[in-house]
């Protein structure tokens, strides 16, 4: 990896130049120095914004009034740009930098890339929609999108052809709207279906349809950029400050991580069976059932379920008793259990060695890492189960047929956490839950709330901040560590793609 020479810290006026436009294609990587704490905060907040984009996108029609209002609100709360204005420079800078940081975290697998691209495209669409016509044109030109509007005379001359080329274009459309000349390579879908007028290699598109072209352009550029970024990743991983941060982000649960135990000992082992039916998310219910039936779980299942149990409040002693009694009913004798399995349970509770990550798994982690294979019961049933089997399982758990089809629809759209939320609503007989499901332990907590679980539990569940005391939280170590990160050194990580990216 080549290190570029140190760049001088950018002066405030160049910020004005850089961030003069309210919307960008993220063609150029940021070059300034940035504090590690800012690095992390920016990234985490952008992640929150993208998660909101995802959730709103399923609950509301994109760009509808409710959608834009809520997204406006969230952008405002997180201090991201939401309406163009002169005081926006700081927000745009944050937007710029945070995008590139998340690229590092989300370029690594196909799933991650797909998710990231989808949310960024939706965010872009929302932002583009509130630009004025003039600003839209400015944006096109500034970004080398060779889309020029044709003159009124040319429009008149081509009127019949334009009207006959598209069902959506009428004489009025031609009169009222600007038509843009776009190279046909940028509008393949319209060319393929012959829904547009094509002349000398250019398609003629009314203003209303330009957005689709631009979004496709954005999507393509981002996709290429992520592929390039992924290839440079080994260089990034060699930086000890960045690697754990990025891992954390890509499996990030933005919110509580349930690593601090609350209510330790408040749950008795006898309650677990009934709790599994009432308050466990489907993944844990499945694991519990498999454990009871087979008196065994393989490693992936032990980790996922074991950490979950820790998160809901099992003490180490309880956990040991729980697993031991179950395993002994199977093929494992007491000695073997103490030798082989007890160690790893103590490990989960921090009593052995120093594991780097033993916080209960978030939904993201369960969905994206370590897919189950033959003989495994871990993972996310909405993601990893064959839809037919999932259907049977839901039927067995007495979910209504209409409920099941709603869930399966969400699964088809790859909205696994929303499917789980729907499962929550159906099994608790509530509608429109207010939380956004991100963590199996969160499911448990919310479920207990709904079922009227006592005041003491409620009181303890309130802390939204990540704990400062948890010394296993590596990111804090990093924040306390060396102060600055010279992003310019990582210019190689954000390679410029070939072509006319502005």
């Amino acid at each position, binding site marked *: 990896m080549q290190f570029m020479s140190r760049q001088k810290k950018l002066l405030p006026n160049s910020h004005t130049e850089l961030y003069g436009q309210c919307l960008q294609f993220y063609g150029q990587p940021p070059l300034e120095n940035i504090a590690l704490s800012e690095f992390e905060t920016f990234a985490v907040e952008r992640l929150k914004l993208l998660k909101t984009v995802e959730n709103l996108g399923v609950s509301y029609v994109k760009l509808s009034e409710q959608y834009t209002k809520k997204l406006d609100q969230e952008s405002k709360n997180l201090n991201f740009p939401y309406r163009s204005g002169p005081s926006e420079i700081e927000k745009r800078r944050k937007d710029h930098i945070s995008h590139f940081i998340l690229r590092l975290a989300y370029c690594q697998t196909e799933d991650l890339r797909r998710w990231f691209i989808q949310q960024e495209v939706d965010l872009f669409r929302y932002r583009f929609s509130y630009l004025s016509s003039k600003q839209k044109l400015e944006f096109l030109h500034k970004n080398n999108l060779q889309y020029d509007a044709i003159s009124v005379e040319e429009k008149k001359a081509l009127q019949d*052809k334009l*009207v*006959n*080329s*598209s*069902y959506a274009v009428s004489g009025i459309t031609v009169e009222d709207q600007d038509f843009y000349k776009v190279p*046909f*390579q940028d509008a*393949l*879908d319209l*060319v*393929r*279906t*012959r829904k547009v*007028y*094509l*002349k*000398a*290699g*250019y398609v003629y598109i009314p203003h209303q349809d330009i957005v689709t072209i631009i979004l496709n352009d954005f999507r393509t550029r981002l996709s290429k950029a992520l592929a390039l970024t992924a290839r440079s990743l080994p260089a990034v991983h060699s930086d000890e400050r960045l690697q754990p941060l990025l891992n954390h982000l890509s499996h990030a649960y933005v919110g509580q991580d349930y690593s601090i135990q609350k209510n330790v000992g408040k749950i008795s082992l006898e309650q677990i069976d009934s709790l599994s039916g009432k308050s466990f998310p489907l993944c844990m219910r499945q694991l519990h059932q498999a454990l009871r039936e087979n008196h065994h779980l393989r490693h992936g299942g032990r980790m996922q379920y074991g950490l979950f149990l820790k998160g809901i409040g099992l003490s180490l002693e309880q956990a040991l008793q729980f697993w031991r009694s179950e395993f002994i009913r199977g093929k494992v004798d007491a000695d073997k259990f103490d030798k082989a399995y007890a160690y790893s349970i103590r490990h989960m509770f921090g009593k052995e060695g120093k594991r780097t990550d033993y916080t209960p798994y978030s939904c993201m982690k369960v969905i994206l890492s370590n897919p189950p294979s033959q003989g495994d019961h871990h993972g996310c049933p909405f993601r990893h189960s064959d839809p037919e089997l999932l259907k049977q399982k839901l039927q067995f758990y007495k979910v209504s047929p209409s409920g099941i089809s709603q869930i399966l629809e969400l699964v088809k759209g790859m909205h696994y956490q929303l499917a789980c939320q729907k499962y929550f609503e159906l099994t608790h007989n509530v509608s429109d839950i207010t939380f956004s499901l991100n963590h199996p332990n969160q499911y448990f907590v919310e479920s207990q709330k709904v079922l009227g679980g006592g005041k003491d539990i409620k009181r303890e569940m309130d802390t939204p901040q990540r704990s400062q005391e948890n010394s296993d939280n590596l990111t804090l170590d990093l924040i306390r560590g060396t102060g600055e990160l010279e992003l310019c050194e990582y210019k190689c990580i954000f390679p410029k793609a070939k072509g006319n990216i502005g």
Partner: protein
Amino acid sequence: MPSSDYDPASLPDLLPLYYRRLFPFSQYYRWLNYGGVQKNYFQNREFSFTLKDDIYVRYQSFTTQNELEKEMQKMNPYKIDIGAIYSHRPNQHNTVKSGTFQALEKELVFDIDMTDYDDVRSCCSAADICCKCWTLMTIAIRILDRALREDFGFQHLLWVYSGRRGVHCWVCDEAARKLSVAARSAVAEYLSLIKGGEETVKKVVLTDPIHPFIRESLAVVERYFPRYALQEQDILGRKESVDKVLSLVPEDILFTLQQDFQNEKKPESRWKLVRDQATKKQATAKKGQYFEKEIMLQYCYPRLDVNVSKGVNHLLKSPFSVHPKTGRISVPINLKELDVFDPFALFEQTCKYSFISFHFFTDYKRTTLAKYVKYFDQFLDAMARSWKGELLRKSDLQKEF
């Protein structure tokens, strides 16, 4: 179809002569080198040869024109295909790290094959062609050439007779060579109007509004339809043909037309009856009213194989390659003489000799092949003007620091 005196067994004797005396190597190299604008363009091009006994070798590549000549004269390929320009020399592809050997560029190509029209021609079938159905190729060339130039803006198109039963089009513009798979597929789909295979009766369906491209194509078809379809193919003459045409007409009109046809036997008049019914329907109906246009298109509109055009790495028969089954050479077609291009004319003059030997045994300078090479030269001259501009631009850029 005139009976053939060409004997494929004579190829091993004729090919060496062809490759030594007639094959236009310098023009061929001039083409594929594209003015030397891009480095290693010729060197990274894949060729494939079909040798005697059906031995097929891929990933052939050459560093110079001379090397190409020597190799072809040594191997005497029965058939030559041209593939893509790769990231590395194709003949070294095994030494390249897996995954990095990639097809980068290639001309945009189209393949029109007469067998794809078997359901609408009555004169021949399969690999046979005659002067009656050759009109279909003429129509195809006119429609596609216009669209590729006027709609897509391409300028350097090389139409080539495939040697047996169809034509190929090589679009050689720089923009065309750089098209992605998705773009090639989109272009091919734009140009496709015939949908459906054996089980589909009605292969063309038009809805409002009728796209300008379809209108332009219809204009071409309408010029040839009376003579080609009504007279030569006699689609409204023989009973089975008539039934087939009527199967494309809306149900509510079918009976009326069947009745009318009992009293009217002349194909031209029958067609007029069909047209009149269509005009009536267009005044009132919102659906299925363009059936007379649909019939014309189903019988005449070009049928392309999208898969040939889609792939950047797809191999296609090379111009000036010999067709081993017919002994005919894939010659470029001069569109100015399109209406008189006759793949059989030369053949009929050569009862005793195969096509190649005909060329060979006549005076070299006045061989009929020379005419095609000359046309190819003109095609290359036109392209060379654009290469010159490119080279100038590049050298200008290099001077800037």
